């Protein structure tokens, strides 16, 4: 009897066999992988996952329960890529595999699959719906409803973590009319098109405001083209076609803006925007445009270290810095956020142990795999608590929400902010 599940990758946008061959099976990635460190199972290590992909490609095992589980337990944090001496693009392999799983199998077990589909396809591609949701969530908090349902234990377990992740006192979401153009504070030095990001824009409006402020203070004219979700969450989940549609929309909008730089304050979005060139590599109409687009993408920390605001005021805080995976591993940006923080007078930058170990946020991983996400979060909070900071800084909305929750859960006072928020505080 044939085993159930889909056999072999088909040719459509599959993880590339040649790229799998770049893995020399040395195992240097094992200790870098959060899921391997937790479980110590080689199927849940980068090397093991590539071995499983090869096994699928060779028709040794099907894309069925075990394979799907191991592919989706990966955080896609890309710490393995920093550790890999052979330069394997693990991200492309795991995301390609998930694309095949989504297209060729029934996907994830239970209710997770339909919920994932609803959230990623029904919510994120539609900025209006996201704003509406953010408004509803704010209402949910200020009306006292959140307190009520929490005290009555009315939240289903699957949504409990999502509820806990909401920062208290959500700010109003930032609704800048699309197409706005904000002049620099001083002499113009660059034109930056701002990619606002869904989560930051709807739940962390102060980060959005601070980003615009520091860019302008450093001499950037800030354009805000009409834009779509970056598609990172879709790619992580395996919804590659939806992601490609979003990517094409963004490419058109941002290239038309004529800006020299495309700037984002979200490590997760930035990493994905820089990967559009890979995502659309086989699309004859867009491959070249995607290349041009990705080449212009910068994290805000890169831009403000190149165009720094001058004459900063002291910000007397003890700040612990956490490296977002999609900044440190995906974009190899480690120095710039630290340099940005060090520029601020009076600010003491604290180095935590293993600053580039994943906090467990990883897009919406924390909602899909809460048990693993909380194990990683606990370790992260331990290392933060050990340096006794007054604030925690990190440049990714997912990390801000996740670590914020972790700190509240332990009764720790330090708030979690984006580095640009501190820079904005220092900027007259």
């Amino acid at each position, binding site marked *: 009897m044939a085993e159930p599940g889909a056999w072999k990758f088909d040719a459509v946008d599959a993880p590339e066999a040649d790229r799998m*061959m770049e893995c*020399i*099976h*040395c*195992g*240097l990635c094992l*200790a*870098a992988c959060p899921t391997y460190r937790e479980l110590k199972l080689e199927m849940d290590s980068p090397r093991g996952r590539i071995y499983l992909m090869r096994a699928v490609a060779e028709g040794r095992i099907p894309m069925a329960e075990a394979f799907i589980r191991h592919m989706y337990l990966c955080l896609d944090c890309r710490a393995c890529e920093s550790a890999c001496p052979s*330069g394997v693009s693990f991200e492309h392999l795991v995301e390609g595999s998930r694309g095949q799983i989504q297209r060729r199998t029934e996907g994830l077990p239970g209710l997770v699959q339909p919920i994932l589909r609803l959230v990623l396809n029904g919510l994120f591609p539609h900025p209006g719906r996201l704003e509406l949701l953010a408004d509803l969530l704010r209402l949910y908090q200020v009306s006292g409803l959140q307190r009520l349902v929490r005290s009555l234990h009315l939240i289903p377990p699957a949504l409990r973590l999502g509820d806990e992740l909401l920062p208290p006192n959500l700010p109003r979401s930032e609704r800048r009319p699309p197409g706005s153009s904000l002049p620099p504070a001083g002499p113009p030095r660059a034109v930056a098109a701002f990619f606002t990001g869904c989560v930051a824009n709807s739940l962390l409006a102060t980060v959005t405001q601070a980003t615009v402020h520091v860019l302008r203070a450093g001499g950037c004219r800030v354009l805000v083209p009409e834009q779509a979700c970056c598609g990172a969450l879709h790619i992580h989940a395996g919804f590659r076609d939806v992601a490609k549609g979003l990517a094409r929309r963004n490419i058109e909008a941002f290239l038309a803006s004529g800006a020299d730089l495309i700037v984002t304050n979200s490590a997760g979005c930035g990493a994905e925007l820089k990967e559009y060139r890979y995502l659309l590599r086989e699309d004859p109409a867009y491959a070249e445009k995607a290349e041009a687009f990705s080449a212009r993408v910068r994290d805000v920390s890169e831009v403000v270290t190149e165009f720094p605001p001058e004459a900063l005021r002291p910000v007397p805080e003890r700040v612990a810095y956490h490296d977002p995976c999609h900044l440190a591993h995906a974009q190899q940006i480690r120095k710039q956020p630290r340099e940005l923080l060090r520029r601020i007078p009076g600010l003491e930058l604290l180095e935590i142990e293993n600053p580039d170990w994943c906090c467990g946020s990883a897009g919406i991983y924390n909602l899909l795999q809460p048990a693993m996400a909380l194990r990683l979060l606990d370790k992260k909070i331990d290392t933060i608590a050990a340096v006794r900071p007054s604030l925690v800084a990190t440049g990714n909305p997912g990390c801000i929400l996740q670590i914020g929750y972790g700190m509240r859960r332990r009764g720790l006072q330090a708030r979690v902010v984006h580095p640009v928020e501190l820079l904005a505080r220092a900027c007259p």
Partner: protein
Amino acid sequence: MVEARIVRELTALLGPERVVGDPHDLIVYECDGLTLERATPGVVVLPETAEEVARIVKIAHREQLPFVARGAGTGLSGGCLDLGGGIIISMARMDRILEVDFDSRLAMVEPGLVNLWLTNAVSKHGFLYAPDPSSQSACTIGGNVAENSGGPHTLKYGTTTNHVLGLEVVLPDGEIVWLGGRVQDRPGYDLTGVFVGSEGTFGIATKVVVRLLPAPEAVLTMLGVFETMDDAGNTVSQIIREGIVPAALEIMDQLTTQAVEDYIHAGYPRDAGAVLLVELDGPRAGMALQADRITRICRENHAREVRIAKDDEERQKLWKGRKSAFGAYGRITPNFYVMDGVVPRTRLPEILRQIEEIGARHGLRIANVFHAGDGNLHPMVLYDGRIPEQTSRALQCGEEILRACVDLGGALTGEHGIGVEKQNFMPMMFSPADLAAMERLKQVFSPDNLCNPGKIFPNPSHHGETTQRMPGIPGGAWI
């Protein structure tokens, strides 16, 4: 396959999260860092205590199932493969540092601890764990004990055996014993010395007492650039002859430096015939003088450039380039086969010439990177596994290189172990009587030969029968 009732018993003992029995999962355990040798295990278990290891071993003993310990699976000789459809006992979850005693300069750790994590844990107190295999960011102390691992700093500090004071061991019958202890000199046989390097055939270590060394006050890294490999090799001999003991002496050939430069941009010259990496460590006083002497020796041997890393960043970069050499080969060849031969240091120029001849005869390129200070070579046979006869030619090259090493008075392996990979080459080095003496020792520890069987000793049926040879992916990332 292991019988279902045994898997059930193991699951009852450890819980489902710590037993891997699904055939779709087990394939990831079918090889280590050397993918030329593969064998799918019957079941994989992940104990967390010595008592659990002992219970598993007793079950294996009762059922007459072979068993083998596995750490991070970074080995390069197939040493942790389960050849008999038995039990892989993964020590990965036993990764704690149980005790650190700076006054006695020792630490007691579990075998699944990652080598580098020990140094990371003690470095802020000014200490380190000296053995530093190039895989140290992933390989485990237990695996290091099994293979008696070395590294670039072996030259000055010795291999793992020089740094292990004592071991708690589960013997192949399930009994838990201590070999050695916390102090250097103990009466009775040196069973710690016997156990370290036994490639997992004498039992399973569950606690390891290791020596910690104070971190050197100063470290200085130099780069000598040479037109020819001979000049670099002669420099190494002269450095040692003049009584200087550097912490490391590493040579890379042109093929290697080019591959590394394309990848890491560490600042190695692309057009040099060979580069020599020298590291000095110790008290700051006198170090500049030593560096001057090494500079002079390099010049006397026609170095065209001698450079001292100006800061820690440059130093780290040079070392990252060196330690990433194997990964970088992935960029210049579809496949490569890592060798691990040893020759007396004075014969380096000679063996390198022979290796070149062997490569030419088989029409394959061979790159070289090696621990020159102790004559430990890592020739890399570059080949393309998609061309059918290239894999067998690469293997043939490997065999001829090792034979040449032995003929020059050297050895089959410096640090990777014999495992399954080189078991049939053992008669090159050892007489039947030598091998019989070793077998008798093994029988003392493992009378029914269940503890990692099928390794080290010649096995005529190997090569294509006990394991499958897989040409698909290259093996091994370092040395």
